[in-house]
């Protein structure tokens, strides 16, 4: 079954990078089981395409992008992530060292974010993307991303205390809005 080059590339990617991909997906889902499902779905989506390459690094990058896309799309389609956030359990964490308590605090704080806010935070501060790149990855306008980041930081600060200023040295502005786009299902 794995004689074909594309299938072999898939197996190699899963075996070599499956854990890293699941950790990455877990940054969005906050739940390891959901992360595993997300990774599996992303792999299927990528490898079902007929023009997939075979370089492990390129494939991993592609799968990571797809993880983000699927996470956002699922939110838009079902909003189930919002519904299951309360099920998140810290049993899935085993932090060690002097920062263990702070890691747990961040884990809990991230669970309070809306999916779009969480995605923006992970892409901006974990993947180190620029705001413009985050906007492109999420399919949003830059202004929307800034608003999500601002709201997210505001929520995180209520639990974690002040966070570091953004790269340009300016404090992250707090923008609150109650406007919500209707029609999403």
């Amino acid at each position: 079954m794995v004689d074909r080059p594309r299938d072999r590339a898939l197996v190699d990617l899963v075996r070599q990078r499956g854990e890293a991909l699941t950790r990455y997906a877990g940054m969005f889902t906050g739940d390891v089981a959901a992360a595993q499902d997300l990774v599996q779905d992303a792999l299927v989506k990528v490898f079902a395409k007929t023009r997939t390459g075979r370089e492990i690094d390129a494939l991993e990058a592609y799968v990571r992008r797809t993880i983000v896309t699927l996470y956002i799309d699922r939110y838009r389609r079902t909003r189930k992530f919002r519904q299951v956030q309360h099920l998140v359990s810290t049993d899935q964490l085993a932090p060690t060292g002097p920062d263990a308590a702070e890691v747990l605090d961040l884990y809990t704080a991230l669970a309070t974010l809306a999916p779009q806010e969480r995605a923006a935070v992970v892409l901006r501060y974990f993947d180190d993307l620029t705001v413009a790149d985050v906007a492109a990855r999420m399919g949003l306008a830059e202004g929307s991303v800034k608003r999500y980041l601002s709201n997210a930081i505001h929520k995180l600060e209520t639990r974690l205390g002040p966070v570091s200023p953004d790269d340009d040295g300016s404090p992250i502005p707090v923008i609150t809005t109650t406007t919500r786009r209707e029609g999403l299902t």
Partner: protein
Amino acid sequence: MNVDLRERLHALNRAQVVDPQPVSPELVLTRVHRRRAVQTAAAGLAAAAVVVGIGAVVYAAPWDAPPMPPATSTPTVTPEPSPEPTPDPTVQPPETAAPAVPEAPEVPPLVAVTAANDLVVIDPDTGEITRVVLSGISDDPDHSPALDVSPDGRHAYITSPGAGWPGEVQRVPFSDGTPEPIGVGGSPAVSPDGRTLAYVGPDPGADPEESRGLNLVDLGTGQLVRHIPDSTCIGCGRFVGPPFWSPDGSRLFMALGWVDGYPTAAEYIVEITEDTVELSEARQVGPEHVPATGIFTRWPSATFLADGRLVAFEASGDEAAWRDADDGPGLQVAERLAIVDPDSGAVTQRVALPDGLRLAGNHGEGRTTIRPVQIAASPYGPSLAMVVWLGWDNVDGHHYALYRWDIDGELQHLADDIVAVVWSPSPVSS
């Protein structure tokens, strides 16, 4: 002291308790194989392509314009997945009846997009490219090349990809091949009276990445006169096929489904009437989908025959029915044409596809699966043209070919490397 969010996020990433082998490669591989099979069988994912073919000889084809049986007196054939992808025994034989279609003063040409992204005119009898109208529509290999031709044969309407979705609908005069922008979107369809252009595009004034619906433009004024939003899904992987008009111009139809390509994803034709305000409320025409059974029937491409009947390419099968072959597992899919009464939505006849298409599709990873990516009917007869996906290989990528089928007549290969085609309603301007 401020929290260093970057550092804290990386610490959280490391702290997650993850199985060293959290994902089973075998399970993923199985799902990939199944999905490839379904994609191949169900067609239409890329919203690519089209077709057509016709000639005077077509008018006498036996299946030419059989009278429409009343829906009440002709029970709909229930789509039953075949264990083998062979003609369904329930397929009714072609009927012979007096045609009720207009006489064609001159056989109009095919207008097509090639794999090299050229807009060309094709002789429907020989498959010869008689003219290149516009070269290099796109250098994007994933470009969706849907197109249409105005009833007077003066303009082609094409989709230029721009920077990806939503792209741009352009009008190209056959006289000089110079494109002009019409609107943001793709998959244009000109109404039979030539006055209105329908195309898939974003909500006016909205973020193009966040919305998708159907736009209607008055070609006389260039003004957007109506937008029909797709409120069921915004930017989330919806498959929205090219719209097409009923012959009298009173109704619009389009295929609708989910890009996921799983058998559980419904895909059918929706009808949009003057009173309909949202796609989600449009009337479904086509097979009822029953996800729990694993049996699926999909209509990824459809068009109107000249006599007013709707014809849809139909793929159906049972998600649980798999075959084991030397080159891996595959999904058993039955493929055929469904002839539909557009008023009742009832299937009045099913026609098996010719064996030649099955052989043509027996390449590479396509194996024995046929994939007509688009069907289009002659405006003067019941003859169909099909752009067929033949397969894929590592060197040249996807392979497509253009076929013409007179249903009960002989299948004719017209040309290779054609990815989209439409039958011009009239001879095109020189």
